[in-house]
């Protein structure tokens, strides 16, 4: 039983990070109908912004974190939109898929060649103190990950539902034509989603790197997990992405412990297929979200 709890809690911590990336997927899908196949690399890169700021500019860790988020918003938000997505507007969706696949390779190998091919230790925001609850060991850092992810998600949810800009963004996502007629600045709203996606990826990167170590190839695993989480949760719902992320994190851990370590990667995908066949809109997704 303590083993079980141990696995669930560490799965929730990992799942919270998947959720952050899955939310980004969902937002971009809603507003631009594009899937970012470089999302995993978006979660890898910001940690290296921070490392670079510390190594080459001598910045303290807190400043490096701010630099990482800002660079992330600049490069992975504005840069990504202007350089990769905007030129492909009106082109077949496959063009975006291929371009982001190439972008993934580009980011990965650039980090490898410019920074290092080796995994890098990454400082934790919270101390690595171990807390024990009836045999279940949890590190303070893990709790921190859960808390930070929850706060970020709550703030985002508040922003999307309670503020004027947030509601305009939702309107843009659900029906751009009507939103435009109602006077919403669609281009600005789309840009906001890119910025939010980049900021979330930056947060996820800073949270996950102390646990996973910062490495150029980290995105391969993370991107697929976040993608599966987004589909399982429901591609058209922010809440769905959160549930999807947590479910995938926990299921992955339990599968490795109780089913088979060799086939652990298959279990979330089996879940994916079951969801597709029996609940195609995802666990929390709405059917026919977009009606034109």
């Amino acid at each position, binding site marked *: 039983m303590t083993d079980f709890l141990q696995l669930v809690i560490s799965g929730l911590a990992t799942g919270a990070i998947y959720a952050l990336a899955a939310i980004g997927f969902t937002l971009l899908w809603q507003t631009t109908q594009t899937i970012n196949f470089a999302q995993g690399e978006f979660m890898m890169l910001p940690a290296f912004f921070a490392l670079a700021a510390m190594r080459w500019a001598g910045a303290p860790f807190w400043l490096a974190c701010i630099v990482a988020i800002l660079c992330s918003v600049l490069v992975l938000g504005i840069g990504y939109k202007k350089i990769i997505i905007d030129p492909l507007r009106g082109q077949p969706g496959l063009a975006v898929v*291929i371009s982001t696949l*190439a972008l993934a390779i580009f980011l990965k*190998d650039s980090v490898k060649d410019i920074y290092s091919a080796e995994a890098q230790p990454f400082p934790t925001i919270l101390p690595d103190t171990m807390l024990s609850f009836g045999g279940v060991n949890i590190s303070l850092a893990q709790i921190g990950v859960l808390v930070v992810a929850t706060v970020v998600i709550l703030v985002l949810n508040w922003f999307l539902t309670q503020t004027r800009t947030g509601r305009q963004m939702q309107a843009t996502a659900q029906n751009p034509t009507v939103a435009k007629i109602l006077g919403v600045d669609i281009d600005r709203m789309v840009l906001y989603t890119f910025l939010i996606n980049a900021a979330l990826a930056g947060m996820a990167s800073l949270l996950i790197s102390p646990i996973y170590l910062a490495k150029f190839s980290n995105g391969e695993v993370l991107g697929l997990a976040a993608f599966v989480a987004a589909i399982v949760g429901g591609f058209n719902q922010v809440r769905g992405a959160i549930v999807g992320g947590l479910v995938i994190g926990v299921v992955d851990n339990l599968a490795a412990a109780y089913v088979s370590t060799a086939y652990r990667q298959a279990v979330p995908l089996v879940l994916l297929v079951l969801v597709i066949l029996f609940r195609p809109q995802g666990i929390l997704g709405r059917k026919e979200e977009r009606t034109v």
Partner: protein
Amino acid sequence: MSTLKRYQFPALIIALILLAAMPADLTGLGIPWTGFKRYGLYIISLWLVTAIAAMGVNLIMGYAGQETLAQAAFLGIGAYTMALLTTKLGVPYFVAFAAAGALCFVVGILLGFPALRVQKHYLAFVTLAFAVFVWLFIRNEQWLTGGVFGIQDVPRPVIFGIKTRPPLVFYWFVLFMTVVLAAVMWWLLRSPWGRAFTALRENPVRAESLGIDVRSYKLLAFAVGSAYGGFAGALYAPLVEFIDPAPFALGPSLYYLLMILVGGMGYFLGPFVGAAVGVLIPEWLRFTEGLAPIIFAVIVMIMVALAPRGILGLIEQLLTPKRRPHSDVTGPTLGAGATLTKSSAEKVTS
């Protein structure tokens, strides 16, 4: 229909003669050309094998408007079928070759049948899961597949007493098989069946109203396309003479999307152009000491931005005088789960 398509056939014949003669040593014929060495022959054979698998993807995506993220997995099924049947059971080459294709066809039906019941992009997601599962299976079931150590010494066949072990002979054999498979594809696309799903691609609603059973056509296209992956695998195994799980993972499957798009989706020769980009450019770039992936990625991003309909699409656009009507039906608009225009095909849910 278009300028490019009119020139396809004669160009093909010339290309074939060139392809057959180019790698050979022609000094005996008085031509000062010594041909390709083993490495050159290997690469050009690999290009053809890749093109066969890409032809399958082109059928599924370019003609039938479906999505597959599992072509490398089908290549793997074909390659392992070939390797196991020939090394462990001593089955004749062509029997194993047919078995590889047939197995992929059946798996394609089994996989596509439930997936096509639900919404449009879900075939893409199901194939994604399938691709990962096949890879895990090959890696973990060492008793059957050799696991991460792979299978060594896959034999090259002896055909009518001709040993295909020498690289040049095997290249000619691959070329011959490619021509046969391309001819079958050509015939398929011009048969009533092929015309039906060209109609389907151009206007799904109309096709449906004309009584075309959209779902079974899509299913067949997916199964046939997957079988081409199996055939390619059955040639890949004896080409490399060794197989292991790496080339059959999810990443290489995504690579086929790239080749199809860059070559020109829905063009008969698109897979050959795409495979050339996907196989030859990384080989040339290998001497950049590890910078190859970056250069390749930049080339691809630029190509996609400049020629979103692929190289053949760009050539066609340049050859056609500027009187093109602005229609969006020439290519399917859907990628792997991504779409910019909501297509009515998405309503195929019942």
